[in-house]
């Protein structure tokens, strides 16, 4: 199969790989870059486990052609921490016990980050709206909603 060169920023670092035609960004990240934080849940855009930010915007990596991110910046959960320091969302997820099996957590955190980046003080309804494309089968969503709200209010407290 013909391979296409692909170069993009991955969590602040430049990376370059060759991809097969038709390969999606999720496969490129996991199998070529080695970033295992985005998860395969359905491959159909139905669960949000593979959510990443592309140029700051929330996208489903399983529905994004790898070639489409050429020259752009991709952020995954692997880049959420600031060095050894957890992001406020990660701390809030821990404090609220907002993960059980943990498989949806990477996508949830990216969806939540996307929300707080554009709206630092969301209402409960806005949080629900922001994570409604992400499926969690364990928690009943309540702790996740509470964690995002708690992270938002801790962000406001620092500001």
């Amino acid at each position: 199969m013909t391979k296409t060169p692909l170069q993009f920023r991955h969590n602040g670092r430049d990376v370059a790989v060759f991809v097969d035609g038709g390969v999606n960004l999720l496969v490129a990240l996991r199998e070529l870059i080695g970033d295992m934080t985005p998860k395969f849940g359905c491959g159909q855009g139905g669960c949000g486990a593979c959510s990443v930010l592309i140029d700051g915007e929330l996208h489903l990596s399983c529905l994004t052609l790898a070639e489409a991110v050429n020259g752009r910046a991709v952020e995954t959960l692997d880049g959420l921490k600031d060095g050894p320091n957890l992001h406020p969302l990660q701390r809030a997820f821990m404090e609220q016990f907002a993960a059980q099996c943990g498989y949806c957590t990477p996508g949830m955190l990216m969806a939540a980050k996307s929300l707080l980046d554009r709206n630092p003080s969301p209402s409960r309804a806005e949080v629900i709206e922001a994570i409604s494309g992400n499926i969690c089968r364990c928690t009943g969503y309540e702790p996740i909603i509470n964690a995002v709200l708690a992270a938002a209010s801790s962000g406001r407290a620092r500001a």
Partner: protein
Amino acid sequence: MAKHRGRGIASINYPIGMNLGGDPSQALVHSNPSGKFTVSLSSIDLGQGMKSVTRQICAETLGVPVEDVYVDTADSDTGPHCMGSFASRGTHRVGNAVMAAAKEARGVMMEAAAEELEVNAADLETDGRGNIHVKGAPHRSISTKDVAIAAQFKQGKTISGRGIFLVPLSEVNPETGEMSPATCYAHACLVAEVEVDDETGEVAMVRMDSAYELGRALNPRLVEQQLVGGAWMGISHALFETPEPYYPDPTHGPRDFVEYLMPGPGDTCPHDIAVLERPAADGPFGAKGPGEMCANPVLPAVANAIFNAVGVRMDELPITPEKVLRAIKAQGGARPQARR
């Protein structure tokens, strides 16, 4: 056309562990030379908190802080046999195996400490903060770290323990069904309030109040995770989920998360939970297991609440708007029952 509210209840019990027993689990516990402990299991953590709850059980039994214990799960070369993570058996069966292993390891640790302190092991106690001291004389103390060093490099002792827990297998009488299915049972009662739209047939959850009896809440935060998440799954089973919407007709089945319906984060409701603890005689610190039973009372409580709201009995799951609407129509309209 209107929205009607109603309340329904259900009370249930649930057996702990594989039916009829015969489902052993083993655990190994050992200390490194710094007095830090590893629990080796082949048991699975699929989100329920196996690693965390066995860690607390081990720390409590050894008498050391929880930070001094890590649990390694699910490697068939290093973890001894476990039947698996199902049948609400993890906390009860694996917890007991870990407790037994930790007791054996504690025995060696106390003997080693006794040798260092030149006292009888029976006169020693742990403080839960990483020290072992003579009962009534806290100044005659040694850290678990120093005990582990002495055991390893001076006394030639392994601070380790093996544990197994097995509920012996029960027979089943073919004629009467006489059997010993389980050694203990968890209990629950749940009140659900719903709002039924008699124009669309949609059922919205308003709130839930519940009481769950679990023997012992080993970690209340983990219990809360199970009960909140399990109740969500109960709502989902009651009102949304089916791979065969016209069962037994196998057609029209959903194929993916777009077509398979489950409640989203906006479909939940407030849930006020009480946890009761009546210790089971053979549970680790009395614990039973909350994992499976937490969803069960929600299904009938929702169905009963719908009857209370609009007077129709929904005896087939899931209770879709289509079914509700057909039932209301067949009845000639909503017939709200006495508010309660």
